């Protein structure tokens, strides 16, 4: 089907390297995709690997379901995962609460300082994590703030706000302003107009921003590694375990997080399809 679809796209000339389009390029694409999936396969495969010492070796020792029966047997690892989930949930909530109003302001009002805000938000997203993490740690040390759960949360909100603003802002820009005007003409005060018209329309954007924030937070390693103090999140625990050997439970949890993420992504795509192209 793809080759047939391809003939029409690049103009109607039948000449040219047709073989490239029909076999070589699709074959190459499949190969690259397969390559990108190798680490996922390795993670899932090794979560079934026997490990008599409780730490995985690079060699394959045989199939077992043991680690799926006892995924939470390592208390430190489990509490690190719980920290990650708590920080991801809280930072998503705070970043969304702070980011949505800011996105509304940036997308719907012209005001002094707007251009500067755009630059700062872009810088927040583009700045290398090492620099962000190092500067936050320097700041906390300077102020004598002890590092731990709270400082991780503060750091995660600081980068998540920027992503929420960017995602929600795009959604607000696409919003048909006349719908809000219509609500106001029909006697709705600004708050009613917001809750009844604007909010439902930008909700998919808010949801997308929140999901992205959650994913970025639960996955963040570099910035967290600077501001964590003695508190460990899931990625920090895994990194720390590299030198002494990885317990199979790490790959079990990795696999479960992977499956949960994919399920949410698919549910999101399906929900958007059902709502129609307007919400894509």
């Amino acid at each position: 089907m793809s080759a047939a679809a391809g003939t029409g796209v690049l103009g109607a000339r039948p000449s040219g390297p047709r073989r490239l389009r029909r076999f070589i390029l699709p074959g190459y694409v499949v190969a690259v995709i397969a390559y990108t999936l190798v680490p996922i396969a390795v993670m899932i495969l090794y979560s079934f690997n026997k490990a008599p010492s409780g730490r995985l070796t690079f060699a394959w020792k045989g199939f077992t379901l043991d680690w799926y029966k006892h995924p939470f047997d390592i208390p430190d690892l489990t509490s690190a995962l719980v920290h990650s989930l708590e920080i991801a949930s809280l930072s998503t909530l705070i970043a969304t609460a702070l980011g949505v109003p800011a996105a509304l302001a940036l997308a719907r009002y012209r005001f002094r300082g707007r251009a500067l805000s755009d630059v700062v938000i872009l810088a927040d997203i583009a700045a290398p994590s090492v620099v962000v993490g190092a500067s936050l740690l320097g700041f906390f040390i300077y102020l004598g703030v002890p590092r731990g759960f709270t400082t991780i949360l503060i750091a995660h909100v600081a980068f998540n706000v920027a992503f929420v603003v960017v995602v929600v802002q795009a959604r607000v820009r696409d919003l048909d302003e006349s719908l809000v005007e219509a609500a106001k003409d029909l006697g709705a005060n600004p708050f009613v107009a917001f809750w009844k018209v604007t909010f439902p329309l930008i909700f998919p954007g808010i949801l997308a921003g929140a999901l992205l924030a959650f994913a970025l937070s639960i996955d963040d390693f570099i910035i967290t590694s600077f501001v964590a103090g003695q508190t460990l999140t899931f990625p920090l625990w895994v990194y720390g375990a590299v030198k002494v050997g990885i317990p199979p439970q790490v790959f079990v949890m990795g696999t479960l997080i992977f499956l949960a993420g994919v399920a949410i992504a698919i549910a999101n795509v399906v929900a958007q399809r059902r709502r129609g192209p307007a919400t894509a």
Partner: protein
Amino acid sequence: MTARVAQLRRTAVPYVLELPGGLWVVVFFVVPLAAILSVSLMTGNSIDGYSLTWNFHIYPEVIDQYSTQFLRSFYYGLASTAIALVVMYPVAYWIAFHGGRHKSTMLLVILLPFFVSFVIRILTWQFILADQGIVLGTLKDIGLLPSDFHVLSTPAAVIAGLTYDSLPFMALPIYVALDNIDRTHIEAAADLGASRLQQFLRVVLPLSAPGVYAGILLVAITNIGDYVSAAILGGPSTTMIGNIIQTQYVENANYPTASALALILMAALLLGMYVYARAFGTRTIQEYV
């Protein structure tokens, strides 16, 4: 009077909406960047503490001491960016022009690695590339590789890890740019007698440039500043500047040195971005980042 109050209120609305989020970002992103400038100019040691002595000499000192790691970071970062670009452009092209109904499914598959925790993603390469792992171990067992062959701890392993991690970041903006190309432009070129190669080189490639620029920028900044690939897949001879900053700050509590290094890295990247933007134009980059 009430009209003026109403006017004032309307002017205040965007500020009130933006203030909480803006304040958070200013206090915990902008101010810290300024704060480490002052930390970098301190002298002292980790036991007695540090005090501000305006020690500007730290900058030439750390540049001199860590120039190898700086250059290596740019080498690894830019090499992995270039490889990711060459590998992913055809893939993005194929999905945009020949993906048909399966475009979104194919994109989701490209993005699947993102659902694996970042550290685990790098860690699995340790398992794949290990001397006695599934790949090298097997190849050695059947005699296709000498038994002392190794990949881990070499620059190749670090660059491979960085490259792998940037593939989706590179593919996405290029795909968006390619997918936005008005197909009638290509048809027009064909009607005017352009060969397929000419259609690609003179229409498709230039129109996809904004996506390419955005992808390069995104990936290069991330990879030059990375330290996880080097820490997990590399060895003592592959230390990047990110590793130095992390060790000096978190483990050695040598705050001035680490702060100076972080600021130099930031300045070098900003300078690079400025030159890059002047050379290739920036108007469209912002739309993709």
